[in-house]
């Protein structure tokens, strides 16, 4: 058991934070949450034979990949993918690296499980366009038929705001009639409308901070604003499982980047101490700024950040905290206000709060919130504010109505009902799936449920079998996850009824038995 020393400067008591070595337990204190509540996060390791068989599967398919490449090189087989022209044969080869090999020989064989076209609202049930391939997935054709009422377990529709009922969308339609759809300008020129000002005020009040700014695209919020906040001579400490937008923003900024093990506070503290002692790379001067970048919920693992310990660390070492709440805003916390509410932490302790409206709010775009000086600085210095076009008015109105619904300001209890429904769906689904014997990762409160499948053949078979039973799931494989840990990611939604979840669980049970996916040894 380790305890943090010198905790009293930030007001958190020593006994509130302890890290146990076997399972990770976060003991939470604070006003909004009952103390004595333990949050279990476990990452069960698969049995050894599963890891061996995964490598075997990849090995065999790689061998066949080399064989097929040989046939293509010799000319016995038609080449379907890009290749160099005859005149370029003496130049440096373009298509020989592992990524292209993997794409040609593994991804192409099974790519009918991804990029499936939808033709309906991405709600709890969707319609898929039926798509067949005659030449083993090199080309597709649409048959013209639609697969109706497929239960959708892949959309980030946490609070069910992806809906098309006319009376909910009345204000959105009014704004579209009033403002049109395009803004035709950037924020700095003529693109700031009164609806943007209203939205920023509402977002700031929702999060409990002084001020906020909204942007048209969530990815661009991260990648374009981090370069405005840090530059050369600054240090970025980034969790190893951070999203690509955070990594891209960090690289674009030119700061020194150090990666720490996922949610490992002891490692982070050691990195902080070492970095502060040694200073900037060659000159050993003190760092201009130290920024710790974490996410609220990590979407591939379903794990939640250890916020109280991070805030204690950042105060002790005078670092700044950048919290990306893309998946956690609206989806966790008793009032839907994200991980700060979940842990009972003062939002003013987090220096930069960032989030997106794509997931829980059913819209598009992102925000950055914090102190007024920070947001005013970003208004004039961020690339996203200067060069990208501002958020479309109907989308802004959709976010406004979603925030009003969640906080209850539109006069109904719809918002709080949805938050409770999401929490209940999450708990129910996770408990049932664990009892069935699957290995799942992540915190018990997180609405993202990754079920580990490991072997490449089973990943593909799982997606196809579930589609045959009219359930749409997202399976994720190598580049996005480690090569031995392929998974299927289920996203809970407040719009899922208990019947839908029961049906999904029933089919999941059957498919798990048919394919042999129940690896857990903790029954």
């Amino acid at each position, binding site marked *: 058991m380790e305890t943090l020393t010198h905790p009293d400067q930030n007001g958190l008591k020593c006994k509130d934070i302890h890290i146990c070595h076997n399972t990770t337990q976060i003991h939470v204190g604070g006003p909004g949450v009952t103390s004595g509540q333990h949050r279990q996060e476990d990452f069960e390791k698969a049995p050894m034979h599963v890891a061996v*068989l995964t490598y*075997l*599967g*990849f090995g*065999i*398919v790689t061998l*066949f990949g080399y064989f097929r490449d040989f046939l293509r090189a010799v000319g016995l087989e038609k080449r379907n993918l890009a290749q160099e022209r005859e005149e370029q044969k003496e130049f440096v080869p373009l298509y020989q690296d592992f990524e292209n090999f993997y794409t040609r020989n*593994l991804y192409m*064989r*099974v790519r009918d499980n991804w990029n499936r076209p939808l033709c309906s609202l991405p709600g709890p049930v969707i319609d898929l366009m039926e798509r067949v391939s005659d030449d*083993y997935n090199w080309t597709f054709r649409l048959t013209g038929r639609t697969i109706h009422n497929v239960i959708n377990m892949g959309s980030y529709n946490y609070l069910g705001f992806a809906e098309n009922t006319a009376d909910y969308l009345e204000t959105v339609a009014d704004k579209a009639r009033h403002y049109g759809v395009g803004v035709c300008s950037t924020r700095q020129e003529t693109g700031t409308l009164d609806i943007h000002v209203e939205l920023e005020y509402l977002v700031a009040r929702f999060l409990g901070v002084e001020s906020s700014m909204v942007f048209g695209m969530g990815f661009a919020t991260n990648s374009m604003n981090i370069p405005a906040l840090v530059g050369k001579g600054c240090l970025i400490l980034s969790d190893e499982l951070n999203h690509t937008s955070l990594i891209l923003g960090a690289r674009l900024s030119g700061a020194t980047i150090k990666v720490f093990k996922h949610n490992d506070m002891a490692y982070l503290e050691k990195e902080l101490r070492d970095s502060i002692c040694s200073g900037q790379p060659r000159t050993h001067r003190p760092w201009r700024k130290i920024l710790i970048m974490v996410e609220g919920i990590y979407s591939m693992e379903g794990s939640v950040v250890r916020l109280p310990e991070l805030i204690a660390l950042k105060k002790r070492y005078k670092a700044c905290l950048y919290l990306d709440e893309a998946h956690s805003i609206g989806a966790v916390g008793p009032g839907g206000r994200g991980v700060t509410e979940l842990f009972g932490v003062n939002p003013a302790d987090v220096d930069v709060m960032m989030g997106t409206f794509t997931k829980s709010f059913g819209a598009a775009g992102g925000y950055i919130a914090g102190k007024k000086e920070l947001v005013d600085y970003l208004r004039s210095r961020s690339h996203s504010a200067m060069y990208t076009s501002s958020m479309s008015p109907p989308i802004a109105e959709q976010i406004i109505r979603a925030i009003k619904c969640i906080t209850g300001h539109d006069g109904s209890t719809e918002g709080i009902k949805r938050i409770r429904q999401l929490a209940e769906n999450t708990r129910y689904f996770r408990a049932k799936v664990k009892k069935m014997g699957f290995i799942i990762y992540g915190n018990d409160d997180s609405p993202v449920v990754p079920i580990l499948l490991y*072997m*490449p*053949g*089973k990943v*593909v*078979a799982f997606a196809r079998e579930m589609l045959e039973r009219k359930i749409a799931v997202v399976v994720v494989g190598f580049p996005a996850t480690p090569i031995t840990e392929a998974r299927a990611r289920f996203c809970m939604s407040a719009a899922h009824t208990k019947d839908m979840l029961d049906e999904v669980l029933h089919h999941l049970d059957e498919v798990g*038995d*048919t*394919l*042999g996916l129940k690896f857990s040894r903790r029954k």
Partner: protein
Amino acid sequence: MAFKNLMEYLAWLYYQYLLVTGIYVLEPWEKSIFNSLLFSAVAMVIYTSYVFVPIHVRLALEFFSAICGGQPESTMALMN
């Protein structure tokens, strides 16, 4: 899982074999190539063991019995 008959159970076992080795993602002619290679390798192993294992076992038993029980036998023979 309930299997109605033996054929269904064998079909499920074949499916598991396809999934675990990763053959499931390959085209049918590639599956046939791999299956025939594996079958011939297994057949060769079985044939070799059928031909050679009894001989090796007998020789090993003789070797070990010569070490353990061999000494007293030869001195008795000399004395007689």
